[in-house]
């Protein structure tokens, strides 16, 4: 299907550059100038991808990005399972983000666990006019009354909160005191703050620092006895069970995972984390802040890792083990060897069906680079990638460790650009989100959601790679894609493309 099959890198680069110029033509001049800075063709050897990032989206272009509330409630705080997260403001934000992120967890929902519930202050006009602080205080009373086994409360601010001058910090403080030192966390993640989900991650990280770490009681007896092998998983949201299929590997190599941030996590696990000997960080973008803080404050080193695909998993296991003694180093080798036959079998089965297939990605802040290795393990090639909310340090990591020469890079891509890029490049697979899925499937291009794993997963770890490989094969080689064109319709468009 790929038209780029026989092209040289130079030809690909020229084509991609031309493509960028072509899409920019649709914009008014000012917009074209601004968008030009977010699109590039990667040059091997450069230290970053040559695009601007973490800048305001342009009005009216159909950005795919979300907001700070989505970054805090939806990503960082929402999965903490034994706390109740109030979507504070009007009903919509909480409603649309209700249980849609597949952060798996174990617990009795509604009794001691609350992840897949929607708690909202459902603001009415009078709350906007007179302020919502009294209502918030009452909500906390009602939560205590109806959900006595909750271990804490967070207040996830929606847009109006910061605009009407509510003092959620004061309410939280007073109620925390009233409830005997209960953890109550006000989070200033109003959707208009920042340029994307990213600031919401940061604000949420800071809230953990200020309202969990800074309030730790040094005299509180420890939940467990420390060992030299205690680590915390940071930045894994347990989508479809990702953190579980990661945790099992860390434990098999001789480490002990004392906390998960934040998929299937609990308040106690957040509180445990300063006891870790090492923080292992999967999603750098959303949780580097708290990792850096723990390094400074508690002297805990942190290490980025990548559990997508056997090559990166093995590399990561060894990297993590290098922080520990031989017992763990040997453990890492043992784990790699144990899963080798499974990986060989998965690759033997799926690689022949996927070899040479071209992929375009557009995801959040980590996966546009992190999954590249997994595709490469299957003989596939990522020919275009971009982030919704990456910063420059993400593009540096992407350039230095992941993408090939000539890869098309698109930051905060617009609906129009993405559609045109895919139309022209004709990849064999697009990996992006629910808003993009059906656009490309209509075009006859196989697609997998790379936020929710398209309701599958886990994709992390060795167990997850088997599912990942199966899913990519299922997407690309589904018979349906041969049926998109009615047989009696002449196929001018694809002939034209093939002749190019």
């Amino acid at each position, binding site marked *: 299907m790929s038209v780029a099959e026989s092209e040289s890198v130079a030809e690909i680069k020229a084509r991609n550059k031309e493509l960028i110029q072509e899409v920019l033509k649709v914009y*008014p001049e000012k917009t074209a100038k601004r968008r030009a800075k977010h699109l590039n063709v990667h040059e091997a050897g450069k230290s970053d991808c040559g695009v601007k990032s973490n800048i305001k*989206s*342009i*009005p*009216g*272009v*159909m*950005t795919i*990005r*979300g907001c700070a*509330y*989505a970054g805090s409630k939806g990503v960082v705080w929402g999965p903490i399972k*034994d706390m109740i997260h109030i979507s504070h403001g*009007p*009903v*919509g934000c909480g409603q*649309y983000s209700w249980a*849609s992120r597949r952060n798996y967890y174990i617990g009795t*929902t*509604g009794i*001691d666990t609350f992840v897949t519930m*929607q708690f*909202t*202050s459902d603001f*009415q*006009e009078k*709350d*906007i006019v007179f302020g919502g602080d009294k209502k918030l205080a009452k*909500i906390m009373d*009602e*939560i205590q*009354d*109806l959900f006595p*086994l909750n271990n804490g409360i967070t207040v996830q601010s929606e*847009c109006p909160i910061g605009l*009407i001058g509510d003092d959620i910090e004061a309410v939280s403080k007073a109620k925390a005191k009233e409830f005997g030192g209960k953890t109550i966390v006000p989070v200033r993640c109003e*959707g*208009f*703050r920042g340029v994307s989900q990213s600031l919401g991650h940061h604000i949420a990280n800071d809230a953990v620092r200020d309202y969990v770490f800074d309030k730790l009681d040094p005299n509180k007896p420890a939940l467990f006895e420390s060992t030299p092998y205690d680590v915390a998983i940071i930045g894994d949201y347990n989508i479809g*069970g990702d953190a*579980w*299929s990661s945790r099992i590997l860390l434990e098999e190599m001789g480490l002990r995972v004392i*906390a998960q941030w934040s998929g299937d996590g*609990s308040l106690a*696990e957040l509180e445990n984390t300063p006891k870790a000997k090492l923080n292992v960080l999967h999603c750098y973008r959303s949780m580097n802040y708290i990792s850096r803080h723990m390094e400074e404050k508690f002297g805990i080193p942190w290490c980025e890792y990548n559990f997508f695909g056997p090559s990166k998993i093995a590399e990561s296991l060894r990297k993590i083990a290098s922080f520990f003694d031989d017992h763990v180093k040997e453990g890492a080798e043992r784990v790699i060897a144990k899963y080798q036959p*499974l990986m060989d*079998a998965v690759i033997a089965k799926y690689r022949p069906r996927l070899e040479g297939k071209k992929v375009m990605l557009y995801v959040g802040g980590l996966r546009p680079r992190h999954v590249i290795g997994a595709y490469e393990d299957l003989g596939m090639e990522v020919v275009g990638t971009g982030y919704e909310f990456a910063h420059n340090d993400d593009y540096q990591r992407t350039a230095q460790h992941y993408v090939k020469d000539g890869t098309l890079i698109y930051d905060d891509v617009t*609906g*129009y650009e993405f*559609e045109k890029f895919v139309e022209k490049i004709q990849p064999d697979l697009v990996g992006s*989100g629910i808003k993009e899925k059906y*656009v490309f499937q*209509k075009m*006859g291009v196989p697609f997998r959601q790379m936020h929710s794993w398209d309701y*599958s*997963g*886990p994709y992390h770890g060795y167990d997850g790679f*088997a*599912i990942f490989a199966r899913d990519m094969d299922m997407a690309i080689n589904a018979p349906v894609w041969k049926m998109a*064109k009615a047989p009696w319709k002449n196929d001018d468009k694809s002939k034209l493309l093939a002749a190019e």
Partner: protein
Amino acid sequence: MSQNADHVLDHFDLFRGPEYQEMLANKRNLFENRRDPAEVERIREWAKTEEYKEKNFAREALTINPAKACQPLGAVFVAVGFEGTVPFVHGSQGCVAYYRSHFSRHFKEPTSCVSSSMTEDAAVFGGLNNMIDGLANTYNMYKPKMIAVSTTCMAEVIGDDLNAFIKTSKEKGSVPAEFDVPFAHTPAFVGSHITGYDNAMKGILQHFWDGKAGAAEKVERKPNNSINFLGGFDGYTVGNLREIKRIFNEMGIEYTILGDNSDVWDTPTDGEFRMYDGGTTLEAAANAVHARATISMQQYCTEKTLSFIADHGQEVVAFNHPVSVKATDRLLMEISRITGKEIPESLARERGRLVDAIADSSAHVHGKKFAIYGDPDLCYGLAEFLLELGAEPTTVLATNGGKDWAARMQALFDSSPYGKNCKVYPGKDLWHMRSLLFTDPVDFLIGNTYGKYLDRDTGTPLIRIGFPIFDRHHKHRYPVWGYQGGLNVLVTILDKIFDTMDLATNMPSKTDYSFDIIR
């Protein structure tokens, strides 16, 4: 290790394996600081009691698991139903990401919509520049025939004035002066998605009928024989609008569907992405002022729109999501009365087939108790149908239903002997429903996808009818209106009843004497 390449285990089975079970038990016991399981069990039981229900119903501030969304969602629903129209939501951009995802998860279709991407500086200085740039970009990139503007709560709180902003944008050349940019203020802190539908629909009609915000002459109404049709916010819009068109064509009626989103949310996979497809033409929207009458299928979705239309001299007739035989009878007879067209024999035959199906099956539904939740009109239509089947809709709840709706529901209950023990719950949420399902149990629950949590917690089998339906596919393609729609609803209810019966009788040598092959 249980994973293997020949038979790849999904999350369903993978985590049930012994290694994972042991790992998760260790995690729980060592690190999570979990509550004592006996205490969890005690609270779980307590949450089923009358005492808990009373506390639960005494809530004044907290909303838990509401069955409603916010206004702009309804505005986007309306906008995509017009030819070549891009919905433009003025305010924070995250909202638009949510609306698009929400609709795509329900319809399994793309939903195009743009935001003016307001951030902190716009919060301070207002979003005028975002509007100016945004309209220009959308106009250039997506070549729309119309851009329909609504607002998020951010823009409403800071008091942005859409009328003035759009005028200024046109003066600045964002879009040509004659380009159609209807608008509606849709504050999320007032009403729900059905209010947003109402405001947006009214906004578009007002634009075309009342002189395009001063840019054109007001249209002088010259009554014709056509009728206008409003579906209201409807998760079955694809199937329903097609069914309604079929009925109208069968009757030989001239009609205009206002906000016809049945094509844009059901485009083919044939190699081409259609950002726009079908929809009410702008000409038709403008000419709709001349219609003899307007029919609304959902009174509570269209209150302001209907009163606006009535003020323009048309007769307006509102229904409450007709599903039952009687309700569809009324619908057809009203259409016949208004247009002077006879109801054709073909529709009488369809009616007869629905009655026939009810006669064949009602023994399985008769006397069964149902809880229903959803939008006010949907609840009414379903309750009316159940009463017709001899079932008892004992618990009817609409988070976005008001006092007026509750009174109408009560009148409906009072009209039937099967309504005697039925109660209506306006303004309540699904956590209230949870208590009710424990203290006043029913045989079946009717609601949207979120009802599956109630099914799990209370053991009440869920019949999925409503919006959104995320976890079952393609239901929106099948109408729930007209006699054919009534038949679909009947079959949906029956399927669950029979499945539930089979599940309750399939234990060999224990219960399977009732595992009948013929039901």
